[in-house]
C-alpha cells in the first residue's frame, strides 16, 4: 500500500478528507459511466424487444393463414369422405354414420368461424365426428368387405371423391406442420421479447442504483467538503496560535 507524504500544512485529518473527496469524485465518475452504459443497454434491449414482437406478429399472421388452409382441408376431406361413402352403395347405417361424421366436422368448423362455439368445443365436436367417421370406416372394412356391385360411373365418382379426400388429408398434414411451425416461431420470438424485456429491466435496476449512488455520493461529497473547510480553518487557527506561542 502506498503512503502519501503530507505536503501541505494541513493536519492528517484534513489530508484524509481530501483523499476521501478524491475517492468520492472517482466513485461519481464511475457511477456516471455505469449509468451511461445502462442507458445504452436499455435502448438496445428495447429495440430487440420491439423487433421480436413485430416478427412474432408476422408469425401469428402466418399461423392464421395456415390455420385457414387447415380448416378448409379438413372440410374438403370430410366432404370427400362423405361423398365416397355415398357412392359405396353399402349399408345405409354406414353411409349415414359417414355423413354424420362429415357433417359434424364441417358444422363445427362453420360454427367456430362464425363465433357460435369456441375453439375448444369445436375441437371436441371434430374429435367426436372423427370417431363416428372412423367407426363407419372400420365397420365397412370389417363387415363390408363384400360390397354390393356398383356401376362404373359410381366407381369413378367414388375414386374421385376418395382421391380428393386423400389429397385434402395430405394437405391437412402439410398445413398442420405449417401452422405449428409458425406458432412455434411466434412463441420462440415471444420468449426472445420477454428475455429482452427482462434484460432491459435489469439494466434499468442498475441504472437506478447508479443514479442513487451518485446522489448519495454528491451529498456526502458536499458534507465532506464542508468538514474539510472547517478543519482547514481550525488547522489555520492552530498554526497561528503555535506561531504566536513560539514568538512569545
Amino acid at each position, binding site marked *: 500500500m502506498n503512503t502519501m507524504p503530507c505536503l501541505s500544512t494541513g493536519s492528517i485529518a484534513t489530508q484524509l478528507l481530501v483523499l476521501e473527496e478524491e475517492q468520492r469524485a472517482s466513485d461519481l465518475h464511475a457511477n456516471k459511466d455505469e449509468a451511461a452504459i445502462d442507458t445504452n443497454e436499455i435502448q438496445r434491449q428495447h429495440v430487440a424487444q420491439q423487433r421480436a414482437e413485430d416478427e412474432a406478429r408476422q408469425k401469428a399472421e402466418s399461423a392464421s393463414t395456415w390455420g385457414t388452409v387447415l380448416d378448409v382441408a379438413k372440410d374438403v376431406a370430410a366432404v370427400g369422405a362423405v361423398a365416397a361413402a355415398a357412392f359405396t*352403395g353399402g349399408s345405409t347405417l354406414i353411409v349415414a354414420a359417414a355423413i354424420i361424421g362429415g357433417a359434424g366436422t364441417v358444422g363445427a368448423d362453420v360454427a367456430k368461424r362464425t363465433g357460435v362455439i369456441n375453439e375448444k368445443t369445436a375441437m371436441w365436436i371434430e*374429435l367426436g365426428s*372423427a370417431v363416428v367417421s*372412423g367407426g363407419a*370406416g*372400420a365397420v*365397412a*372394412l370389417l363387415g363390408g*368387405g*363384400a*360390397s*354390393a*356391385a*356398383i*356401376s*362404373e360411373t*359410381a*366407381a*369413378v365418382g*367414388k*375414386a374421385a371423391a*376418395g*382421391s380428393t*379426400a*386423400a*389429397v*385434402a*388429408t*395430405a*394437405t*391437412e*398434414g*402439410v398445413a*398442420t*406442420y*405449417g*401452422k*405449428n*411451425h409458425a*406458432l*412455434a*416461431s411466434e*412463441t*420462440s420470438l*415471444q*420468449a426472445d421479447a*420477454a*428475455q429482452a424485456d*427482462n434484460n432491459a*429491466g*435489469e439494466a434499468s*435496476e442498475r441504472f*437506478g442504483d447508479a443514479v*442513487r449512488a451518485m446522489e*448519495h455520493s454528491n*451529498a*456526502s461529497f458536499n*458534507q465532506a467538503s464542508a*468538514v474539510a473547510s*472547517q478543519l482547514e480553518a481550525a488547522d489555520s487557527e492552530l498554526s497561528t496560535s503555535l506561531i504566536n506561542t513560539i514568538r512569545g
Partner: protein
Amino acid sequence: MNTPTIAPSIHGMSFETDLAMLEIQNEQVTYQADSGLLEAARAAKREHEREQVDELRDKASNLLASGITQGLLLVGSGAAQGLGAASQYGADMDRAKTAEQAGATCKETPVLTATGAAAQRGANSYGAASKGLDGLAKGADLAFNAVAANNDADAADASHEAEDAKWRADDAATARQRDQSLLDQNLSVVHDMLRSDEETMRNLLRPA
C-alpha cells in the same frame, strides 16, 4: 434479546454522542439487512423470469414437435387413403365388370376375380392404415395440446411469481433508500455533536 452495553466514554465524546454512534451502527445493520432483502428479491425475480422464458421455449419446441408428428401422420394417412381409393377403384371396376358379365343387379354381391379380390384386400388394408394414422394424429394433437397448456400455465405462474418478487424488490429498495437517508441525517447530527464535544473540550482545557 440482549441489550448492548454502552461503554463509558473515554475518548472525549459525550454520552449522547456515544448513543448516537450506536444508533448509527444499528441503522447500518438495518441498511445491510434491507440490502440483503433487495438482492434476494432481485435474484428471485431473475430466476422466475428465466423460468417463464424457459417455459415459452419449451412450448415452442413442443409445438414444432407436434407439427412434425401430426404433419407426418396426416400425410401418411392421406397417402394411405389415396392408395386405398386407387385399390378400391380397381376392385369396384372388377366388381362392376363381373356383375355385368353375370347380369346381376346392383343390390347383389358379385363374386370378385382374383385381381379384384386382391385389390379389395389392398383397399381394406390401406383404409385401415389411413384410419389408424388419422387416429394417431388426433391423439398426438390432444397430447401435445395438453403439454402446451401445461407450459402456458407454468409460464403464467412464473410470471406472477416474478411480479411478486418485483414488488418485494421495490419495497426493499424503498426501505434501503429510507435507511440511507436516515443514516446520512444521523451522521450529520453526530458530526455536529462531535464538533460541539470538541468545542466543550477546548473550553475546558483553555486557561482561565
